[in-house]
């Protein structure tokens, strides 16, 4: 009970402090400088942080490239709008990540990885409804993988700022995933299978953006 009472008095301290994430120190990098015992100093990364930044960086870059492609080539207006949203949201996230990576001295890739380049090449060769279907299928897969990567960083990383970036980005990526799933279902003439359709609660802050068929 003493602990519980203490807990409430320290609420403000904890909420505002950099202690939001507390990892398993067994996974810390041996060369980590500490701000206090058990607390990595800012921008002190482990292998996972570095791999995370590179993989998410390259994926995010591909999202923007593919989003522009969808904006140009998609047949369905909703798919076009989804592509625009990807350019906008992932563009913002990429900028944030680039700044964090720079502070932590992590080199980011300059171009999408071979997997995404292959997807891009395939999509370049498709047109009309076939493009929409293939783009959405690739988007579902990409957002599934990105969601996994972000969750992985939240527990495995040690750079508090990168982990916070992962926590903040994850709900948006899950929204994108749901939107891509719903659009793919609509394109195939199915009704969304979930209770809560993506078109409700899809507010990105401005309240104006909705996916329409």
């Amino acid at each position, binding site marked *: *009970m003493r*602990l*519980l009472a*203490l*807990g*409430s008095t*320290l*609420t403000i301290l*904890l909420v505002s402090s950099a*202690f939001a*994430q*507390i*990892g*398993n*120190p*067994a*996974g*810390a*990098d*041996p060369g980590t400088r500490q701000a*206090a*015992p*058990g*607390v990595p100093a800012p921008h002190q990364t*482990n*292998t*996972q942080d570095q*791999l*995370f930044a590179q*993989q998410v960086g390259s994926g995010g870059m591909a999202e923007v490239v593919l989003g522009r492609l969808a904006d140009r080539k998609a047949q369905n207006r909703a798919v076009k709008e989804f592509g625009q949203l990807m350019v906008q949201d992932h563009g913002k996230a990429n900028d944030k990540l680039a700044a964090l990576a720079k502070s932590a001295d992590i080199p980011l890739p300059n171009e999408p*990885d*071979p*997997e995404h380049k*292959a997807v891009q090449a395939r999509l370049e060769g498709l047109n009309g409804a076939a493009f929409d279907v293939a783009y959405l299928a690739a988007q579902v897969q990409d957002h599934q*993988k990105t*969601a*996994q*990567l972000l*969750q*992985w960083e*939240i*527990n*495995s990383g040690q750079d508090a700022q990168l982990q916070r970036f992962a*926590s903040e980005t*994850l*709900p948006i*990526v*899950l*929204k994108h995933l749901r939107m891509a799933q719903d659009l793919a279902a609509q394109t195939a003439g199915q009704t969304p299978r979930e*209770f*809560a359709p993506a078109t*409700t*609660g899809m*507010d990105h802050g401005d309240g104006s953006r909705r996916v329409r068929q």
Partner: protein
Amino acid sequence: MSKPLKRNVLFAAAFLIPATLFTLIAASDPLPPDATYRPLPTRPFSAVKADDEAQKPRVMLRQADLLNRRYDMSDRPIAGVMMSAARKAVQGGVRVKLPAGVTWESLAEMSPDEIRQRGLMPEGFLPLPHVKQATGGQVIPDRHIDEIRRQEARDLRRFDVNFDLPDHLTPEFPPPVFLTTQPHLGDVSRGQLLTIKNFYEFMNGIITPVQMEGLRLLLTPFPQEEFNQTEDRKVAEQSTGISCLDCHANFHTNAAFHLTPDVRPQAARFRLDTTSLRGVFNQQVHGSKRSLRSVEDFTEFEQRTAYFNGDHVSATRKGVHLPDRTNQVAMMAQMQNIIDFPPAPKLDPFGRLDRTKATEQELAGEQVFFGKARCAECHVSQTSFMDNSMHDLKLERFYQIGNTSNDFVILPDGPIKTFTLRGIKDSPPYLHDGRLMTLADTVEFFNLVLGLKLTQQEKEALVAYMLTL
């Protein structure tokens, strides 16, 4: 086939096969190597321990803060209502805190969409994080740790975390033990915690040799993820391990918790509150996501799951125990299968209230349970108040998924098995992760989730009824 044609086909095939392989390889770049598999520690034990110990006060404060934000954790027992061995009072009242500006009634009038969009889901209804999600693992309450140290000189205290709930919100300790083979004896625990030291003396003459051997195995410590001899342990001294009954204390539960072994990545693994083994003889579905169909299967495989998080690779490194199906598993299962529910003197053989013994309020509660509240659609009285099925409440209708709470990513729970309600007053906290502290909380939870629109009177009657089970 003519020779030149055959040669051409072979040539074409030789050309096509590598092209196909290349495509397959390029299209399957995987996530990081430790996304599924547990990474090896990067530093020596002493350095990890020092950091874990330094982090511990912050870890505990952060969890206490979360619990206080979610719940009223005070000691407010229901007058005159004790658990089955009369060692601990049953706590009352709704403990989940409401967001500002709403009441339980106004919340129940809103649609799931509205609650989700306005962020009004009470935090205490959301999945409950482990005290240290990134590490996870079994966390045993202090009273059990102290008793095992006293009896066996075995240390179950972790240096990185402590148990996070106050004692009054957990089951009575030690819990009583009722045997289906000896109903006339009542509690056979002698008020003690069953351990490897005392079990033979206590059970000699009332269980069979086969059951006795099963019990011995259930009380024998085996290496576990956090309790072992490697540098990857979370206990100060090299440990001989954990026994089944270190969580399922006296075949019931001491509210020890863990993370589900059945989900990855780590951040998404939800907390598991230890399930009581009472009445397991009537239970057909075992495991949080595995839906194993017999207690034998569950017992045999638990070395890979509760002990090693569904990671047979880690188990192999830390000391694997593979119980023999015929000579060990069957005996452990047969011991578990004679553990009875506590007596419920107001219930008839069909699990319905005896009208001559029940109060008006309890009878009213039974009516609500079988009617308006729809509890009995899953908690079927004839089958020990469960239905041997897994159901998805789709709670994510009420909240935005993907938010992080104490390093735990809150996602949809998916299907979870129906738990028995027999002896339910003995088993706080409630739901598979222990996110609800009292039975009154469970009533408010299901009132909202199932859209029941119960009156205050009906809610109180339901709680009174569940106390008779």
